[in-house]
């Protein structure tokens, strides 16, 4: 099986052979010479120092002078070497697998003869202020665009094609701007409108149609590598469609492109960020994400940042940065260090390299997508917490007198209760600890000596974050632990995003955390001092339910430890995900407390006071304070007793504490119910992540430090801009930026003509193709920027041009001369993109459900994807393809067969192929069979016995024009023979009509519906239905 004449490759090939440079014609360095040097020489004589041979570089004019004598070919070593007959002397050397053709040698010879001057690569030069050229046939031109095109045609003696027929024109422009065909009424109105501005009116209507944003979004989602699942191997579903809906809204509201770019890169950093501006930054988080067990998180985090970097460069600069990740770019002036300067902009968010295996936590940083009601509830709950906490402080103050009374009323033999109140678990380890853990001499009696691989369960501890709790134990660590889990309530380490809470030894220090998703939705404190090694110490961790890091305290030997706040940003629950009870000394796939010992492990369902913790350590602090007469208490004892009194004795205080806890519960619940989406949010200055050049791009091979910045070969970074993503966006959208507007207008051109003026939209660098119409590209770019980066305005200009309106039919001579339509002497022709082909069938049959936005739809073909998904019933089967659920490891097979992008990585141009697999989809796919059947029955219902009228309308709906007599006859013949086929065995029709969930029209004979459906099926496979003409 072989597809035949497919898109680009073949056509370019034929174009190449037609290029012959006349012997004396001036050579253009950028167009003719640099591509040769770049492709054949730079690998060893280019920017990459490490690959450089013979200390020669040919990418810089001064350096190349070593082997080039301007104007003197005979003295130029370069020319001698490339033309040498001695294989040992000849360049490029045989082992490079690169050879120069005689044509290429000739170009280099002529170039040296003509002076051998260098010029910067065209796309790095400022956008030129170009003159609109004069033309002979000015009457043909409708806009400046046409003058650029025509001047080139006239120079080559080529005549533009005539304007396409009106039906063809309205079909073309309606698809190009909205992704849907025109209705018959719209066609009739356009045909009837004899005014000069008839086509302008159509275009203006289309640009204002809400379908416009959907069409634009379909292109943008390829660039944004949008998918509804995380990708990689496990590929769980993820909730990112609010970003897709934002894209549609942005296009429909005609958001200026510079703002569109700025919001996506840095919507969190703009002055007064809004929900939408922050939502736009989801763009940077749509790369694949990893959850596979055993992955090294940092390896994948680096991969995420790299993907952000590559997407940024391809989407906005039209550059492929990938090469420079591992070494100096071999072809473009991007140093490896400069790659990591870009990288640094995207390397500063609080993220993890793996998402949560055991929970559905959204990888941080996230944006809470609260609706108005939820937002109001959150605000109210916060206010309520603040209010009740204020009352609590007041009560604390007011109860001084009561405390005094209580102090006086104590009995002299008062002792602390044993156990202390609220103890819900205690293990003295007098019994064997279980597993391979050993029973050893402990702090009191026996203790457990842990293997690190055998956890000790407690059965308690499933606290929620508004509930205070305390855990206390004696522990002995045999050495300074780099990482060891002391106890935790969670399912696993990074696999679960560590949801829960934990106490660990990290780099010899105690580290306590409460975690929804580490690191961005969590709080953690770490003791300043290292934990003593080799003898027993008492440790208590207390939590006050406040949701703030300072509410988490770590005590060593009865005294609170000074701690560093590592994270203080917990805003979602710490429960769920499994592992609901505290486990001591071990965690799934984490490092256990190997050879560590624990004794007297207790869990309390309340926050212990300082004095109580001291009592647990020394067995006397509280007792002594209780037994000391009021006038002999130290100040510390007195304060300790007051806290003890309030927390354990005083009812008004504890009533208010209950009220606070209830308010906190309400607050937590108001947050827990709100959905989230991944966005960008920078770490603050104190935690900023340092970026390094990575040797060979490897995550574990950092070398020198680099700071955020832009390459020397591009315009300077604005002096007054911050060195963050916002500054980067300002640099990128500066009116004088050479790449941003060119790349953008080139894609708009591609959207209307199938190919850009630069036919390698993914590569504006030296390995890409130069523009077919450089002056036109620059004129459009300037016009785009001066018009306010106005997308609709530029699109309007393009489709109103005479160039766009040309017929696509071409003479054999023109095709032979310009097979790739590089000259634009005719209209473009290619198979419509996947979304349009499917949407068109749905539209023509009347099945299309015109609902915008919301959660993704699951049409029929998802049931037979590589990762089958349960399909929708009802409207989800019939929505525009933009909304089809996109699973990276099993994308919708119909879309894939029709050349949709896989959305693994940023793609700015789709492949176009033609294979028999596409024929199978359009001939037999249930979506298309159903659409044909529904169309057939609707047309029969409308036209009754008038088969010819029915066939004409079908034809018009699917091609936007009336059939010729010949075509009518073919259709009629088709209908009659299919009718005969079904009539011969009416059961055939009955089973045929069962395809699809849409109801079968009662009252029309099944055989007639079936025959009409087969004709619709024929037309849905007809060239004019699926091909831009």
């Amino acid at each position, binding site marked *: *099986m072989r*597809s035949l*004449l497919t898109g*680009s490759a*073949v*056509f*370019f*090939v034929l*174009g*190449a052979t037609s*290029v012959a440079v006349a012997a004396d*014609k001036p050579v253009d360095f950028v167009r003719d010479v640099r591509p040769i040097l770049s492709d054949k020489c730079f690998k060893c004589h280019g920017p990459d120092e490490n690959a450089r041979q013979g200390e020669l570089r040919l990418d810089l004019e001064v350096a190349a002078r070593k082997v080039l004598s301007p104007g003197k070919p005979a003295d130029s070593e370069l020319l001698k070497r490339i033309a040498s007959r001695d294989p040992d002397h000849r360049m490029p050397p045989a082992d490079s*697998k690169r050879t120069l053709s005689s044509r290429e040698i000739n170009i280099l010879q002529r170039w040296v003869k003509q002076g051998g001057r260098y010029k910067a690569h065209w796309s790095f030069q400022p956008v030129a202020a170009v003159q609109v050229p004069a033309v002979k046939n000015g009457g043909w031109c409708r806009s400046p665009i046409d003058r650029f095109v025509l001047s*080139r045609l006239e*120079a080559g003696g080529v005549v533009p094609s005539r304007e396409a027929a009106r039906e063809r024109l309205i079909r073309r422009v309606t698809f190009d701007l909205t992704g849907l065909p025109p209705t018959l009424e719209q066609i009739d109105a356009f045909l009837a409108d004899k005014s000069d501005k008839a086509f302008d009116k159509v275009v203006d209507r289309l640009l204002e149609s809400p379908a416009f944003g959907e069409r634009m979004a379909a292109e943008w989602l390829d660039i944004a590598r949008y998918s509804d699942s995380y990708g*990689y*191997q496990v590929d769980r579903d993820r909730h990112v469609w609010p970003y897709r809906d934002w894209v549609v809204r942005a296009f429909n509201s005609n958001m200026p492109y510079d703002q569109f770019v700025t919001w996506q890169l840095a919507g969190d950093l703009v002055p007064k960020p809004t929900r939408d501006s922050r939502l736009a930054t989801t763009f940077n988080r749509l790369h694949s994400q990893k959850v*596979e067990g*055993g*992955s*090294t998180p940092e390896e994948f985090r680096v991969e995420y940042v790299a993907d952000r970097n590559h997407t940024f460069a391809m989407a906005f600069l039209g550059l492929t940065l990938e*090469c420079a990740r591992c070494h100096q770019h071999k072809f473009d002036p991007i140093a490896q260090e400069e790659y990591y300067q870009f990288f640094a902009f995207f390397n500063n968010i609080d993220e993890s390299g793996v998402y949560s295996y055991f929970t559905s936590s959204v990888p941080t940083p996230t944006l809470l997508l609260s609706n108005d009601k939820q937002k109001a509830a959150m605000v109210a709950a916060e206010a309520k917490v603040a209010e009740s906490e204020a009352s609590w402080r007041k009560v604390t103050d007011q109860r001084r007198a009561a405390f005094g009374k209580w102090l006086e009323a104590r009995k002299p033999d008062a002792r602390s209760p044993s156990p202390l109140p609220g103890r819900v678990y205690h293990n003295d380890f007098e019994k064997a600890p279980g597993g391979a853990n050993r029973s050893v001499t402990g702090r009191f009696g026996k203790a457990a000596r842990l293997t690190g691989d055998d956890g000790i369960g407690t059965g308690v501890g499933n606290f929620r974050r508004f509930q205070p709790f305390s855990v206390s134990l004696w522990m002995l660590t045999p050495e300074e632990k780099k990482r060891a889990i002391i106890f935790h309530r969670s399912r696993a*380490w990074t696999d679960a995003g560590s949801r829960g809470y934990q106490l660990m030894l990290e780099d010899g220090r105690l580290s306590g955390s409460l975690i929804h998703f580490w690191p961005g939705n969590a709080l953690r404190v770490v003791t300043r001092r290292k934990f003593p090694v080799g003898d027993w110490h008492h440790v208590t961790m207390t939590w006050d339910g406040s949701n703030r890091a300072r509410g988490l305290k770590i005590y060593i030997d009865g005294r609170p430890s000074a701690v560093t706040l590592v994270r203080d940003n917990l805003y979602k629950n710490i429960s769920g995900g499994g592992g609901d009870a505290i486990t001591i000394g071990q965690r799934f*796939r984490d*490092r256990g407390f*190997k050879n560590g010992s624990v004794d007297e492990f207790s869990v309390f369902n309340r926050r212990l006071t300082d004095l109580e913790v001291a009592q647990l350590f020394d067995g006397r602090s509280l007792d002594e304070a209780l037994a000391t007469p009021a006038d002999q208490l130290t100040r510390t004892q007195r304060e300790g007793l007051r806290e003890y009194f309030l927390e354990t004795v005083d009812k008004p205080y504890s009533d208010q504490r209950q009220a606070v806890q209830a308010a906190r519960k309400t607050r937590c619940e108001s947050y827990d119910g709100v959905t989230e989406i991944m966005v960008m949010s920078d770490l603050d200055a104190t935690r900023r992540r340092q970026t390094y050049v990575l040797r060979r791009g490897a995550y574990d091979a950092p070398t020198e430090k680099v700071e955020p910045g832009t390459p020397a070969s591009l315009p300077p970074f604005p002096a007054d801009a911050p060195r963050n993503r916002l500054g980067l966006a300002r640099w990128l959208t500066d009116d004088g930026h050479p790449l941003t507007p060119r790349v953008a207008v080139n894609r708009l051109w591609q959207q209307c003509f199938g190919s850009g003026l630069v036919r*390698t939209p993914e*590569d504006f*660098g030296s*390995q890409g*193709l*130069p523009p077919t119409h450089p002056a036109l590209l620059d004129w459009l770019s300037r016009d785009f920027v001066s018009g306010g980066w106005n997308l609709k305005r530029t699109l309007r200009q393009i489709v109103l041009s005479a160039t766009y309106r040309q017929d696509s039919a071409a003479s054999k001579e023109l095709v032979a001369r310009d097979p790739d339509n*590089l000259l634009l002497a005719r209209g473009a022709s290619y*198979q419509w993109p996947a979304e349009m082909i499917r949407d068109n069938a749905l539209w023509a049959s009347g099945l299309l459900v015109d609902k915008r936005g919301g959660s993704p739809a699951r049409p029929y*073909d998802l049931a037979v994807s*590589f990762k089958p998904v349960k399909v929708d019933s009802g409207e989800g089967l019939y929505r525009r393809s933009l909304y089809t659920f996109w699973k990276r490891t099993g994308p919708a097979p119909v879309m894939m067969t029709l*050349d949709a992008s*896989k959305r693994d990585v940023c793609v700015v141009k789709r492949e176009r*192929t033609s*294979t*028999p697999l596409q*024929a199978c989809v359009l001939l*037999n*796919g249930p979506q298309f*069979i159903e659409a044909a059947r529904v169309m057939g029955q609707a047309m029969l219902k409308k036209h009754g016995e008038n088969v010819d009228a029915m066939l004409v309308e079908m034809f018009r709906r699917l091609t936007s024009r009336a059939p*010729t007599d*010949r*075509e009518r006859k*073919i259709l009629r013949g*088709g209908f009659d023979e*299919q009718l005969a086929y079904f009539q011969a065995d009416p059961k*055939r029709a*009955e*089973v*045929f*009509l069962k*395809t699809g969930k849409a109801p079968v029209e009662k009252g029309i004979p099944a055989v007639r519906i079936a025959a009409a459906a087969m004709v619709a099926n024929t037309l849905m*496979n*007809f060239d004019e239905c699926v*091909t831009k003409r």
Partner: protein
Amino acid sequence: MTLPTSTAGRVCTGFDHPAQLTRQQFLKNFGMGLGALALSSSLGDQPARGDGVLGGTHRSGRIKRVIYMFNSGGPSQIELFDHKPELKRLHGTELPESVRKGQRLTTMTGSQSSLPLAGSSFAFKRYGDGGNEISELTPHLAGLADDICIIRSMHTEAINHGPAVTYMQTGSQFPGRPSMGAWMDYGLGTENSNLPAFVVLVTKGKGGQPLLSRLWGSGFLPSRYQGVRFRSGKDPVLYLTNPNGVDASARRLMLDRLRELQQAGGRSGKQASDPLLEARIAQYELAFRMQRSIPEATDFSSEPKHIFDEYGKDSKNPGTYAANCLLARRLAERGVRFIQLYHPGWDQHGGLPGGIRNQCRETDQASAALVTDLKRRGLLEDTLVIWGGEFGRTSYCQGKLAPNNYGRDHHPRCFSMWMAGGGGRGGTTYGQTDPFSYNIAENPVHIHDLHATILHLMGIDHERLTFRYQGRQFRLTDVHGNVIQDLLA
């Protein structure tokens, strides 16, 4: 007037490219001219044609096709091919640091407090004249000892399934590159225009580490080169079958009308000479022929009983590994260039002895039968059969080492594969590992080397099968790979 230089003139270097063909020659090469093809309703198979970009091989190749039995999950070399008596002796003792040398472990065992060595529960014997050492787990393979070449010194850098399988299939750990089969299709094209050149057969209903369609994807190559996965149901190819109630005669009538319509010339009424349209017409005819050729290839009803006996009883059950092996032979007979089987389930982190016994029960007999069957039909001479996974497994135990049970974690530093058929050295073992099956002691074979060697057997210089993408020439072996001459007969 000068047109800008087109990319395609620079697509590939060092060999004749379609750039040098005229348009007419080009069309002719593509199936005897499209018009003739389009008008032919003949159901007969098209003759073989070399329509890859190479327009033929770089040199005469030893093989014409590859059957690659990808056993994914990481089959344990220590249980199957890499006999290590030393591990039995040291069973239960810690992996010496002098062996591990601080190399990275996965985060699954990286935190484990102890790494006890585990000897294999299974016995090995030497078989055949060549004396290949084969495990008791694969008795059928043992019978073919002199037909297979065991490579014990495969290695990779990838440590987890996703990247590792992607690496083995595409030469890169990260998504986006074309798979080996896509490269072959791109380079050499098909031998049978009625069947895809690159067919993928996945064992149905297996759990284990998931497989992804991108593993047989075309990456940056045009999508027509991607592998076509044959499903085990009634439609081996997506929507190949006509809808219920529509038989081949009705479809033929409909396609004839469609062709008439496409050739009616639209409003102008002139016969179209548009290449896009011609291609379109031809694709519909190909689709129609595929509606016959694919069911014919996948229909086992003509296979005699002794064949089913040979492949095992599963071979009658479509979608099983055994049935896929038999189907692979039928596709090889019909000129499919690259046939890729996938059989997941080799990821025994725990309960390895039982798990691997099951896996072998599902695969051993059919794998061996396929080689025998090909040999009998004379197809083995120009077919390369490859059996292997994405990495090996650790010599130390993952989780608890019990008397009769153990597990092994992923191990990239050495693993084993075998090859049979055209150009391979039957009855030999290549490469050695250290006594722990941890590091390679002799003759390492990297994934890139394996790829270079397979391409070499096909007659392709791996450095000269390239595709220009994002401004540079890409190839299956990236910038690496050496042909391992000692693997060639």
